[in-house]
């Protein structure tokens, strides 16, 4: 029997059903909310700042970013087809009504939402052992394990709270990694960010538990603009997880976040993301536009920043988590699985800027394209003149499933130091008939075989994820890929 005779049947009804399986996190929570009217102007920025009782310096910072944003052109260099975005049609603030003092006052509907999503916010949280900051539309609705963390000296709270309570720290670090005018979406975020998480790990502290933020867009016609700032002082360590979902809506919704990481001497930050924003339906209607600027600054010698991302959601992903390897012997890592199915588009990758001596970076990127998905890896490895002995290794693999998808690789390598070694390897292939034949001949069903092979393809990245996330990521990938083969 030839592999051809075993090849998948294309109009399998079961496959069709799986293909049309709905996005599981696509429900809407019916909750009263307070929103700012749609539109963006200096007044809106001021109102937003006032709503959040921010100090004057913060308002000025936002206004400066807004004014700069007005002068910037929309970036068009990515390999993405983006319909023009009407920034005046969006509402820049939406929050569940009623002020919150503690988790106990949180609207039960909200808690229910997070229960449905499998995010433990209440008592159950204790069992899970992960501290969670849940962000619902524009505001943080609750942070768990605050007492335990405070005992260790760790500050983990919402960004709004941090601006009020830890103004000096925020002022010192905010915008120091991603300046307000860094790029179009970072400038927009700086002007209108509504909340996010703030983490401060003092000298020598190893954060006693994993920290996690769960982002949820709920309200219609709102953008979500959160800002995360993580500071790890000398010898400190933290592992941080981020997850995201949104309801299914026919309109495209905008998510433009900024994440800044600062690692001082010998500090280590591990940042993991499982991004499952609503990807739009199988005809490409709706879905989140995910335009995110993430950057880590290894300021101290021997520091390390590691990014791991699993990107299965969003209609459009525009995201390049980067490391500035400033400290001598600092290390940057980037592990990524990006999946595009139906009409999803992703242009994602990383930047490793080697400035310090003996700095090292490693990039492992796995792209999976199915349906009509377009998946691009775009990465920059830059070795500056002073980066003696710098080392980079990049591996970039793409898997194609189907005839109408695309997989692209755009690595940039710029080397100005003769003692540096930079290596890049990339491959593109489909699941081979041989692999399928092998699995099928051992009695493994078609879908299971694909999922097995894809899982193997992504293993290098999944193994970098914390356990809970690895399980979720694997499940997500299976669900997202269902119906892709056949």
């Amino acid at each position: 029997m030839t592999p051809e005779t075993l090849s998948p049947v294309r109009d399998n009804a079961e496959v069709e059903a799986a293909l049309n399986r709905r996005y599981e996190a696509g429900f809407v929570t019916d909750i009263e909310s307070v929103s700012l009217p749609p539109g963006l102007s200096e007044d809106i920025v001021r109102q937003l700042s006032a709503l959040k009782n921010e100090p004057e310096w913060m308002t000025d910072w936002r206004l400066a970013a807004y004014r700069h944003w007005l002068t910037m052109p929309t970036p068009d260099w990515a390999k993405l087809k983006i319909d023009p975005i009407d920034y005046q049609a969006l509402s820049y603030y939406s929050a569940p009504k009623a002020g919150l003092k503690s988790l106990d006052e949180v609207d039960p509907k909200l808690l229910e939402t997070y229960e449905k999503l499998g995010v433990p916010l209440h008592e159950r949280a204790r069992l899970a052992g992960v501290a969670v900051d849940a962000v619902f539309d524009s505001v943080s609705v609750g942070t768990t394990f605050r007492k335990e963390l405070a005992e260790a000296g760790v500050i983990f709270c919402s960004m709004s709270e941090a601006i009020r309570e830890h103004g000096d720290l925020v002022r010192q670090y905010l915008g120091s990694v991603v300046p307000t005018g860094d790029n179009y979406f970072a400038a927009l975020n700086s002007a209108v960010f509504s909340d996010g998480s703030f983490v401060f790990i003092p000298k020598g502290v190893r954060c006693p538990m994993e920290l996690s933020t769960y982002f949820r867009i709920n309200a219609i016609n709102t953008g979500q603009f959160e800002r995360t700032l993580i500071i790890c002082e000398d010898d400190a360590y933290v592992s941080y997880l981020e997850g995201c979902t949104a309801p299914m809506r026919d309109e495209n919704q905008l998510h433009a976040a900024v994440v800044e990481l600062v690692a001082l001497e010998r500090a280590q930050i591990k940042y993991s993301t499982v991004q499952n924003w609503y990807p739009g339906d199988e005809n490409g209607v709706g879905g989140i536009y995910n335009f995110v600027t993430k950057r880590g600054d290894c300021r101290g010698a021997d520091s390390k920043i590691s990014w791991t991302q699993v990107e299965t959601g969003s209609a459009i992903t525009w995201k390049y988590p980067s490391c500035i390897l400033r400290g001598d012997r600092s290390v940057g890592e980037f592990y990524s699985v990006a999946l595009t199915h139906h009409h999803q588009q992703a242009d994602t990758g990383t930047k490793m800027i080697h400035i310090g001596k003996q700095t090292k970076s490693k990039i492992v990127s796995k792209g999976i394209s199915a349906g009509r998905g377009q998946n691009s890896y775009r990465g920059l490895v830059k070795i500056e003149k002073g980066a003696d002995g710098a080392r980079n290794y990049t591996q970039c693999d793409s898997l194609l499933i189907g005839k109408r998808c695309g997989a692209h690789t755009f690595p940039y390598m710029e080397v100005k130091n003769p003692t540096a070694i930079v290596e890049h390897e990339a491959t593109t292939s489909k699941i081979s008939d041989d692999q399928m034949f092998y699995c099928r001949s051992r009695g493994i069903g078609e879908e299971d075989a694909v999922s097995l092979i894809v899982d193997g393809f992504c293993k290098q990245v999944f193994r970098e994820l914390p356990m809970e996330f690895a399980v979720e990521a694997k499940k997500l990938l299976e669900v997202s890929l269902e119906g892709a083969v056949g």
Partner: protein
Amino acid sequence: MSEATALRTPLVESQIQAAAARPPGDEPAWLAQARSENLAAFTAGGLPDTRIEAWKYTALRALGQRRIGPVDVDAALRATVDSTGFVLPGVDGPRLVFVDGVFRADLSTAQDVAGLQVMPLSRALREQPESLRFALSRHYRERADAFAQLNAALGFDGVVVRVAPGAKLSSPLHMVFAGGTQAEAGSHLRVVVDVGAEAAVDVVEHHVAVGEASHLATLVTDIAVHDDARLGWLIVQDAGVAATLVRRTRAQLGARASATVHALELGGALVRHDLACDLAGQGAHLETRGVFVIGRRQHVDTQLSIRHGGRDTTSDALWRGVADGRARGVFRGAIVVAEGADGSDAALSNKNLLLSADAEIDTKPELEIYADEVKAAHGATIGQLDERALFYLRSRGIGLAQARSLLTLAFCRVALADISDERLREHLGELLDKRLPRMADA
């Protein structure tokens, strides 16, 4: 200052003047129109800046400030040139020599070869203009194509090569482009090559220096390799130290056609080569091999792009680079597999050695894949010689400097490995060796 006036750099101004100064020839109307359209596009767009992706690593600001005049044809015809310097072993077919863009019949050697028609473009335009209409009436619209626009607007000569279907030519055709006798002169040549079905031909594109004068030369080459035909193309670029050389080569391959391109980039101050190959026919095969060895303040930029359009097409690219001094080497190797090009197999390897703290190498291998039954892979490295290989040689009593030289030469010669004529291969190897920096026993 408005953007339009900002684009009117001295170079652009001088080219507009050069175009106005051209004596009106009795050209076909379509050619005159193509010239004026391309000149208009060049005037409107100016030189591309580094914000344009294709020119990201090659800044043209300094070039933009220069005034480049037209070549003095009479002077170019009179210039004394020693033609023995052009000779390459094994390259013994017809030879066409251009000095600063002007055809020199006295230095060229014509041969009657069955199935081969080769002549200067100026003659072909007089005798059979319609056959060139397609190639010469192209209108370049992108700002990135500024030099092609300039070439189309100002070029008045070049080479036309036609190989009759089925003709297998044994002696390589030799095109010599000598430059550097006239300071700040601009020469613009066109090469049109048509290799008939089942024919086979080897062509050498040879750039040499016959003077140290700084000048600008552009060369636009269009190649068609028809079904089942074979083309070997060897580029030996050994231009003068002050030369600015911008070349653009486009090749289209028919069904089962095969082409091998070798490129040695050694000379020039600012050198740019856009090499675009379209594997349009089913089963077409392309091999590209290239190497640059640069030092001083040389800037060499190669932009390779390979498009797999037909089914079962294969391509293999192997490029090496060595940069010393304050040189900057740029490489982009893009592979596109179009929708429907199932069975494509593409591989690209780009390795670079950085020898000096002031040199820089920027490389960007790209893959764009729109079909799933494909195999595509690329690899790129920038670094130094393998320590273990060095150790091996030293453990056999070879000094560090010599070991380094040997390994560096071997690193570069990989790009020449499959040149079948041994004498030619050795000669090119020596050319490379001469360019490699002498290593000190440090």
